[in-house]
């Protein structure tokens, strides 16, 4: 989990003891003002498992569950308010976003932006492979938003009835050939990758970038045997960065994020294998109001600018 507080440091422990933490205070009821929202969120997050372990009475548990369900029930209302841009000050608490690893740079920036716009909120990210994230969500991980790197992985969650509403595609990613800086092997087309003696790494087909690579290669009618099917796009890129591989098929965003450590080569067949990035509010979101606002930020013009700067294409 990547957690960041608005001011970048951890607030001190609340003076009141854990049992004195006003449970109603921490319930994300959007119509209320929160004087010490980050504090109460932190303390409730910390005390919750402890209370459960201690078995501190069914009433308390009921209060907690009532609290979270009331939060999600009224979530849509708050979201509408957020999209109208009029009640941004009323949001608070932590928004937990599970996002595909390729979104790390752009979403981190958007998270910062979101916290500035809504003081008292905090965006916690969990970046990882879309499949593992989907698996965590369906096994009950407490998340508000899921941004996947493929429609298929989002489907895992929608099929499990885990999303609130229909997922929306907010970005598309395109493959690019990553080579060592200066492109020493003079790779200019996808076909060049099939040259003998060239060490190419692809993502494993079980992960989105691997599926996309297969689609692109099929579109080009090429048969490419890589030296390795890497477990995710970052390790594929790392192999090129370390010069263990001569080239890799990775996302354009990853090439851009790697800076001058690799060089990107565009190829036309990549258009055949665009990767859709759907985002969805989750059904069991503990902080649905703020979550909706975050989803809206991603789809807004500002959000799109951050994403295109990172190398994504608009949907």
């Amino acid at each position, binding site marked *: 989990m990547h957690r960041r507080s608005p001011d970048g440091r951890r607030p001190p422990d609340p003076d009141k003891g854990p049992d004195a933490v006003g449970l109603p205070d921490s319930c994300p009821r959007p119509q209320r003002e929160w004087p010490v929202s980050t504090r109460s969120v932190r303390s409730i997050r910390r005390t919750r498992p402890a209370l459960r372990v201690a078995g501190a009475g069914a009433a308390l548990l009921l209060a907690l569950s009532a609290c979270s369900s009331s939060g999600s029930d009224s979530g849509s209302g708050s979201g509408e308010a957020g999209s109208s841009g009029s009640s941004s000050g009323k949001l608070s608490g932590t928004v937990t976003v599970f996002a595909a690893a390729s979104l790390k740079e752009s979403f981190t920036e958007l998270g910062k932006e979101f916290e500035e716009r809504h003081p008292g909120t905090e965006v916690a990210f969990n970046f990882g*492979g879309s*499949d*593992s994230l989907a*698996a965590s969500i369906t096994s009950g991980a407490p998340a508000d938003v899921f941004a996947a790197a493929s429609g298929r992985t989002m489907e895992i969650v929608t099929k499990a009835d885990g999303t609130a509403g229909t997922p929306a595609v907010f970005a598309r990613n395109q493959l690019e050939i990553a080579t060592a800086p200066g492109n020493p092997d003079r790779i200019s087309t996808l076909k060049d990758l099939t040259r003998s003696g060239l*060490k190419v*790494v692809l993502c*494993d087909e*079980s*992960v989105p970038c691997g599926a996309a690579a297969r689609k692109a290669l099929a579109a080009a009618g090429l048969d490419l045997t*890589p*030296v*390795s*099917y*890497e*477990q995710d796009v970052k*390790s594929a890129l790392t*192999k090129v960065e*370390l*010069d*263990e*591989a001569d080239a890799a098929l990775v996302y354009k965003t990853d090439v851009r994020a790697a800076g001058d450590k690799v060089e990107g080569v565009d190829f036309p067949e990549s258009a055949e294998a665009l990767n859709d990035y759907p985002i969805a509010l989750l059904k069991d979101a503990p902080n649905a109001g703020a979550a909706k606002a975050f989803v809206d930020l991603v789809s807004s013009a500002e959000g799109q600018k951050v994403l295109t700067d990172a190398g994504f294409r608009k949907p």
Partner: protein
Amino acid sequence: MTKPATTTPGGVGGGPRRTRLRRGTRAVPVPLLLPALAGLAFLLLPLVSLLVRAPWRDLPEQLASAEVWQALRLSLVCATSATLLSLLVGVPLAWLLARTEFPGRGLVRALVTLPLVLPPVVGGVALLLAFGRNGVVGQWLDSWFGITLPFTTTGVVLAETFVAMPFLVISVEGTLRAADPRYEEAATTLGASRFTAFRRVTLPLIAPGVAAGAVLAWARALGEFGATITFAGNFPGRTQTMPLAVYLALQYDPAAAIALSLVLLAVSIAVLAGLRDRWMTAS
């Protein structure tokens, strides 16, 4: 085993059973028994759950795939090769640490055990930096002999050896320290050089320890994931061992992953149980 009845005066008839019962309750104090059972349950529960939730109906179909057996074969070959490589260099290293004095020996021992605490992925990166195409040693291997190790089966063996050898070294060193060095002296007075004494006397004496260490190393190598996928990559039949196959299957088909895990589990249990009967009880 002691004969229970001999010490009970009087009740000869009911003696044995009573004694055994009393001994049973006396031997295991509750403050030890309860945590022990909790520990056992903690270790076994996940494995049992794996069995409970296994897709038994789809299992034959899952296991029919050639890739499973390819990965299993590769796993066994690589783990065994890594164990042999560990034995070849690890036993002499253990001997050096246990039987000789040299400056900085403590430091060397600490360094030897470093891969135990190093995250395997970091180990894989370190291996790339050492033996990769551009690595400290790897660039010379490449330019002089045309040998590249990443993305090869040899690379898998190296990665597994790197992670597994410390287990062997530690186990053998411990056994060597416990073994009586005077047997080596006795061999020496009979005309054996230090090496002959090691080969013909010490090595047979510490064989149970070496076997235990080898089994540990083998088991560790068989389950190796992080260093392998980082250093050797993932290519079916060449570098895709069972743990890699399991991990990638988990991405899209958890049932397949469980099936693969079951195979790995079954093979490990069979091998370890077989070795235990043959070797471990010899000590």
